[in-house]
């Protein structure tokens, strides 16, 4: 049981010149000056302003919708209701390239008859000014006849429950049957059972959804939009009934995504209005629109029943999961699958039994959110580990150490991990970094917690994920990268520039990346699933390497040496052992150009392709690979008020290879904040399906005052499938944070709050329950 890293040699430790350095990201100077144009910063001549009218009820029948008064208002150019649209549906295709798979997730574009969630769109308005569009929305008359709804997934499964749509409320189910559960429990000396609950969470990216659409002279519908997925042009075209090559998505720098801009948001509304009016149309969501307008994080109820020996070896685990999918399917089946795969946590358990289901309700629909089911799974498995340790009287870290997966071990779904598993090392380092424990002070108790995780990077292997990129070198030896990748703030574009700069021997400043345009940049796939660096980084690596090979080959001829003796750096080609034999990259490129040697390359990277898992046992490969790491915190809890202060917060993650350590640390710090909000304060509250928290006054995001200084510990096994052995950090940064905090609070007060968020009220309640009962006074 040592914390020493395994010796990883799979990716050679090349002498990196650009990669691995905390360079200033290429997008930073523009952003620091307010010069970066976000999607909402664009205007066009003759542009109209749009507004979406939403249903104020969660479950109702639309019996009348009359837009006559709105249409009559001067300056209102167009009002669209379902009656004006062909009966097409907006399908959430699995966002990506192959189109091979499609979820049955059709959603009506506008309410035709049945309202299924609070905020479902009734009508679209385009007017000369935003004020007019808003006034027109108020003039639309409608009658909603309330219908019984169902607002709890467990209720929704009971016989006689109102059906949200179709024939029953089950949206998806998964199961895992691995090993022999009964034998595992027979071997156990203790059985620990607990149920954990999580809440609806809002992404709250700072830039609300926004876009601008126009139809060009070729009848192509152009949409400039804040999105994580430009490949949605296909789903948008299908919803409009036009050919796929008649819709173009232009991204911009995205003002935060976190999964909330993974589904289609404003695109179809914009396209319909631009088509109907023949004019450019802008639709900018208000913050309130944004609270209503995209899917939330799934609330889960997760029960663990764990069999364990007295010395802390887990012999069996039985897990049930119920997720609230809300009124439409969106990505629920996949979120559920990710939760199942991560269900038992980063532990080797031979006997695993999981039953999971996602259930429709008349709550807001739920979909992708950083962590994508694995985060909810982690909230459960890491709190369960602490409960088991308490039950056995064993150190919490030691219990984990005795059960950690190692390379070669199978996870719940039967896939044997091939990359490094540095859970122990990460956990040990994060814990050590907490340093000296803060002193307790009267009612203020101090507690510590840690959580570890198993988070996939890359998409489901039977979706056959691919990514394309183009890399070229100009005559003046500057470099161009073309990639469809969207940059949602994590430095996706800058990382590509850094990879190309590394391989072509130029500085970061000499690389320009054109990205995020479905018409002109090769499709990279989505910026989701911690896949952008893995997939797109590999595509750029492939393209740049091919180009590098040609440049080096030609230089070797010039120098009269073997290509293996030539390297590129500082915009020069040179013989490694005789650096005086050297030429400017510009001159080399000139030779190539005059000889017709191809100075660009279009490459495609393919993730591992597999068939689906066995539906009865859940065994098979689901993801390309997994990342491992830990988060540790120290908290102070005021036992009188229930107030929690996070004093220390440390993330330690094996990222494989940090392309830009500053960007990696940024992910860890941001994940720490988002995870802290998840643990302590953030909750989208729906009462009978109606949203009670539609602004930042009710929905509480951590501020600078709430956050401690976060520490980041970056480990590099170079064992990942990404470029230079990289894994990923986007989702892992968040996943272990909330359970670490939950464990710390429990450690401080000696009681556990089994439901997130752990609010002061819940803490006070838990403490009160712990008090001996007294008679009334």
């Amino acid at each position, binding site marked *: 049981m040592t914390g020493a890293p395994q010796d990883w040699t799979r990716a050679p430790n090349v002498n990196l010149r650009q990669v691995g350095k*905390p360079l*200033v*990201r290429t*997008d*930073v*100077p*523009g*952003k*620091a*000056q*307010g*010069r*970066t*144009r*976000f999607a*909402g*910063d664009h*205007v066009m001549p003759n542009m109209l302003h749009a507004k979406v009218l939403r249903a104020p009820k969660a479950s109702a029948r639309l019996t009348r919708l009359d837009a006559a008064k709105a249409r009559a208002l001067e300056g209102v150019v167009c009002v669209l209701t379902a009656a004006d649209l062909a009966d097409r549906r907006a399908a959430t295709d699995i966002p990506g390239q192959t189109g091979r798979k499609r979820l049955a997730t059709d959603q009506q574009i506008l309410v035709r008859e049945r309202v299924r969630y609070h905020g479902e769109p009734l009508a679209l308005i385009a007017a000369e000014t935003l*004020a007019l569009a808003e006034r027109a929305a108020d003039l639309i008359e409608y009658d909603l006849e309330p219908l019984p709804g169902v607002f709890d997934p467990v209720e929704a499964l009971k016989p006689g429950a109102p059906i949200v749509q179709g024939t029953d409320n089950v949206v998806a189910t998964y199961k895992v049957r691995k090993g022999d559960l009964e034998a595992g429990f027979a071997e156990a000396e203790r059985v620990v059972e607990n149920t954990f609950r999580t809440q609806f969470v809002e*992404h*709250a*990216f*700072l*830039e*609300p959804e926004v876009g601008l659409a126009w139809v060009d002279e070729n009848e192509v519908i152009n949409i400039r939009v804040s999105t994580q997925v430009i490949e949605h042009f296909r789903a948008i075209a299908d919803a409009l009934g036009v050919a796929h090559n008649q819709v173009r998505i232009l991204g911009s*720098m*995205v*003002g*935060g995504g*976190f999964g909330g801009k993974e589904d289609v948001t404003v695109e179809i509304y914009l396209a319909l209005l631009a088509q109907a009016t023949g004019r450019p149309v802008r639709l900018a969501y*208000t*913050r*309130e629109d944004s609270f209503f307008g995209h899917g939330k994080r799934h609330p889960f109820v997760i029960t663990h029943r764990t069999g364990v020996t007295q010395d802390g070896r887990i012999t069996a685990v039985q897990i049930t999961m119920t997720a609230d999918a809300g009124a439409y399917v969106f990505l629920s089946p996949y979120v559920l699958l990710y939760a199942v795969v991560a269900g038992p946590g980063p532990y080797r358990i031979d006997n695993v039994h999981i039953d999971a289901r996602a259930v429709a309700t008349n709550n807001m629909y739920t979909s992708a959110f950083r962590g994508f089911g694995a985060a909810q799974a982690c909230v459960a498995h890491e709190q369960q580990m602490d409960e088991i340790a308490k039950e056995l009287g064993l150190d919490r870290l030691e219990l984990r150490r005795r059960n950690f997966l190692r390379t070669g071990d199978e996870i719940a779904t039967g896939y044997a991990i091939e990359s490094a598993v540095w859970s122990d090392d990460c956990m040990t380092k994060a814990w050590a970094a907490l340093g000296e424990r803060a002193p307790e002070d009267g009612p203020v108790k101090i507690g510590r917690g840690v959580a570890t995780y198993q988070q996939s990077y890359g998409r489901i292997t039977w979706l056959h994920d691919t990514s394309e990129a183009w890399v070229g070198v100009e005559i003046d030896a500057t470099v161009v990268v073309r990639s469809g990748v969207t940059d*949602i*703030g*994590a*430095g996706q574009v800058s990382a590509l520039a850094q990879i190309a700069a590394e391989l072509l021997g130029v500085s970061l400043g000499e690389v320009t990346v054109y990205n995020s345009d479905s018409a002109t940049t090769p499709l990279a796939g989505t910026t989701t699933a911690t896949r952008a660096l893995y997939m797109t980084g590999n595509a750029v690596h492939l393209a740049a390497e091919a180009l590098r090979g040609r440049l080096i080959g030609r230089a070797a001829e010039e120098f009269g040496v073997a290509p293996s003796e030539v390297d590129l750096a500082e915009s020069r080609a040179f013989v490694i052992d005789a650096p005086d034999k050297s030429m400017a990259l510009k001159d080399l490129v000139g030779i190539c150009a005059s000889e017709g040697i191809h100075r660009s390359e279009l490459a495609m990277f393919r993730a591992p392709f597999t068939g689906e898992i066995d539906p009865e046992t859940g065994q098979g490969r689901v993801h390309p690979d997994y990342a491992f790491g830990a988060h540790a915190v120290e908290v102070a809890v005021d036992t009188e008020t229930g107030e929690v202060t996070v004093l220390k917060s440390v993330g330690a993650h094996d990222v494989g290879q940090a392309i830009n350590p*500053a*960007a990696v*640390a*940024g992910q860890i*710090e*941001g*994940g*720490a*904040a*988002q995870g802290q909000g998840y643990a302590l304060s953030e909750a989208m509250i729906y009462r009978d399906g109606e949203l009670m928290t539609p*602004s*930042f*006054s009710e929905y509480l*995001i*951590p*501020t*600078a*005052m709430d*956050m401690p*200084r*976060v520490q980041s510990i970056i480990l590099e096994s170079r064992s990942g499938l990404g470029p230079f052995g990289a894994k990923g950090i986007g989702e892992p940064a968040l996943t272990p944070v909330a359970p670490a905090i939950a464990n710390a609070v429990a450690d401080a007060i000696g009681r556990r709050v089994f439901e997130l968020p752990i609010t002061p009220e819940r803490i006070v309640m838990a403490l009160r329950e712990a008090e001996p009962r007294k008679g009334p006074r």
Partner: protein
Amino acid sequence: MPTVSMTVNGQPAAGEVEGRTLLVEFLREHLRLTGTHVGCDTSQCGACVVHVNGKSVKSCTMLAAQADGAEVTTIEGLATNGELHPMQAAFKEHHGLQCGFCTPGMVMSAVDLLNTNANPSEREIREWLEGNICRCTGYNNIVKAIQAAAGQTGG
């Protein structure tokens, strides 16, 4: 419609606006200064912070008419002759941003902080930033950048 005129980033600016037009709308839509962002409808996020007569103000809480005659500075007006303002340079150097949507408001707010208190403690910086939400960075590097801009080392 009433006319408003003010000095924005050192240049005279005037326009006809409806009475209810907010300063942020005037800046973004009339003057096309899109560096100032809008992140909420309830004056909580701080993405819209600009300086009015040298003080930081959430430009979504002020009518354009109220800024009539004022000196307004936006993020676009901070750099001089292509040289980043020291606060912008510090944000750049210390990776004080990710998606960048909160950044203009953060930078404008932070500049006012140092004008008010040249040597703030970490706690004072965090308190000052309470009205500026960042969803990406966890505030670590924002605080660091401000400490660096204040000439504090070891930040």
